[in-house]
């Protein structure tokens, strides 16, 4: 941009000098280029075809009584599918159970994961132990479900035997008991995913400024004070990410629940996605299923919003910290 300006120089003012505004650009950001659009297009179109198009269908289905038999056409139902949800006890209980399940999973996983990370940090065996601890994460959740079902079995399950031997369990069955079933499922999730929390926390611990720790110790703080007043505040962004991701996965993955209890006994473990699965793919009431799915997607969108905000800012902060 050329401007005309008067500039001060030693000894007076020079009038009518052409100056150029120099705007330094962020070196990684460029003005729009159309070839970038073409690079983006195939992926965006495919993603739209498999996510937006089904979303339109989902809304259509939630307003109809969907007929799967060939030759029958869907019947307009208005908001019936939604209004029926308000009085659907299983639907409301599904939400409650989902939150109860998530709360249990998250609190145990965060507690154990942080403890493991703190102990492992700078431990002699850190590398090898971390490698061993990651193994459960690679397992398909269904297989984990089967494995735990085997361990909980009342006649030949080793975990059942252990629980009996230490006197926690009288007999009967774990997965058939309304009280125990929930904990059994939570334990499976905890077994698989605590290591992830530990790994995230470890990554965070590596970035706790050592000088702060040192200063704190020089001032006479013990290990507990050190953890709670220096390390933990530095860990918050990491824990926040861990909580959000795990919460999201808690209603994304229901494979092990379907295998182990199918939502029973007496709906004690029927978290909302499990209920949705039953409605849509056991009873094939796809219109009602679509309405339930819609409410679930609303929560997803809300979570997505939080995540984009959280990911944007702390990520940048974490990255810059990593570079120094």
């Amino acid at each position, binding site marked *: 941009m050329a401007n005309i300006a008067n500039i001060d120089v030693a000894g007076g003012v020079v009038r009518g000098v052409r100056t150029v505004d120099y705007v330094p650009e962020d070196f990684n950001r460029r003005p729009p280029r159309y070839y970038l659009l073409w690079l983006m297009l195939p992926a965006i179109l495919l993603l739209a075809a498999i996510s937006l198009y089904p979303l339109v269908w989902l809304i259509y289905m939630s307003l109809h009584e969907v007929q799967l038999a060939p030759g029958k056409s869907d019947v307009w139902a208005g908001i019936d599918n939604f209004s029926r949800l308000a009085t659907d006890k299983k639907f409301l209980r599904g939400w409650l159970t989902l939150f109860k399940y998530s709360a249990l999973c998250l609190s145990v996983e965060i507690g154990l994961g942080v403890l493991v990370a703190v102990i492992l940090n700078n431990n002699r065996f850190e590398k090898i132990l971390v490698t061993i601890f*990651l193994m459960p994460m690679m397992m398909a959740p269904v297989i984990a479900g089967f494995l735990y079902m*085997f361990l909980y079995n009342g006649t030949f399950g080793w975990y059942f035997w252990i629980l009996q031997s230490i006197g926690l369990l009288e007999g009967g069955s774990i997965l058939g008991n309304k009280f125990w079933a929930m904990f059994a499922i939570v334990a499976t999730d905890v077994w698989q995913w605590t290591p992830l929390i530990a790994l995230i926390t470890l990554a*965070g611990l590596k970035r706790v400024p050592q000088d702060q720790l040192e200063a704190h110790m020089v001032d006479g703080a013990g290990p507990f004070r050190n953890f709670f007043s220096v390390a933990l505040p530095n860990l918050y962004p990491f824990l926040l990410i861990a909580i959000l991701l795990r919460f999201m996965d808690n209603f994304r993955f229901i494979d092990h629940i379907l295998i182990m209890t199918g939502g029973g006994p007496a709906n004690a473990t029927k978290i909302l996605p499990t209920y949705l699965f039953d409605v849509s793919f056991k009873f094939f009431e796809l219109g009602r299923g679509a309405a339930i799915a819609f409410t679930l997607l609303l929560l997803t969108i809300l979570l997505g919003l939080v995540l984009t905000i959280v990911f944007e800012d702390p990520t940048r902060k974490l990255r810059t910290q990593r570079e120094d």
Partner: protein
Amino acid sequence: MASREIVRYRSPLRSALQGLSILFLIFFFVWTVLPLFIMVVSSFKDLLDAFQLPEVGDWGDIGVMFDFKPTGAHYVELFTEKHFGTYLRNSLIASLGSAAVSVSLGSMAAYALSRAEFRGKRDLLFWIISTRMAPVVAVMVPLYVIFRSSGLVGTLPGLILAYTTFNLPFAIWILKGFFDNVPYAIEEAAQCDGCTRWQAFRLIIPLVAPGIGAFIVLCVLFGWNDFLFASIIGSGGAKTLPVATAELVQPVKIQWGMIMAAGVVTTVPMMFLGLLIRRYLVAGLTMGAVRE
């Protein structure tokens, strides 16, 4: 930067903590490894041996776990009578296919998203990440109806498309983070030297290649471990390993030996892959938010 070494003095509190932490580590180690160990051991036991347990409270008799004659019968039966070879192939094709589609299209889009600045970019990114977050069951409801009417249910292409619903947004999102870390100056320099834009793009591929490789592996892992899509959309013609495993549960009797063997077959390859991409694992599983 302060040094990493901090002088620690012995105190009763510290020694007690140390002892406790070692105990806890041992507990956590056993808790993590025991189920895996039991799975592997049970897959080599015949049914009678697998059901042996000591008396309640009889801790001394725990060695009964090792008291068996190893047999490979379950594995043989899986691959001869239960056609696990076919399911293994289905699993491979579905997960590799979806990984290939997702990462090839995803890396182009990720590059563009990383380099371009335009109105609505944030909204686009938000759409992409929320697609990835959507619960599989909820996505499957409309997808099932669409696939049914277009004859994709029970076919491998259908399953590949279904897996792409979570792999493609994952690939775009995480690779965008990777391209963000490559300075634009490199491409600029290449273009000064006479490269076309496409050549400049190809030039920085080697810089992100390890990451791209690792995320192909992760996409394969997500597809391989999926059960929900495979059980509904793949049912019939495109049975994958997890679904085939679930079908070993029959009303009359559950074939535990074979289920454990199928578990080993499904899990072991993924564990190796997980070790292979160890460096990228945390970034991959946290959508790039946390790097080690």
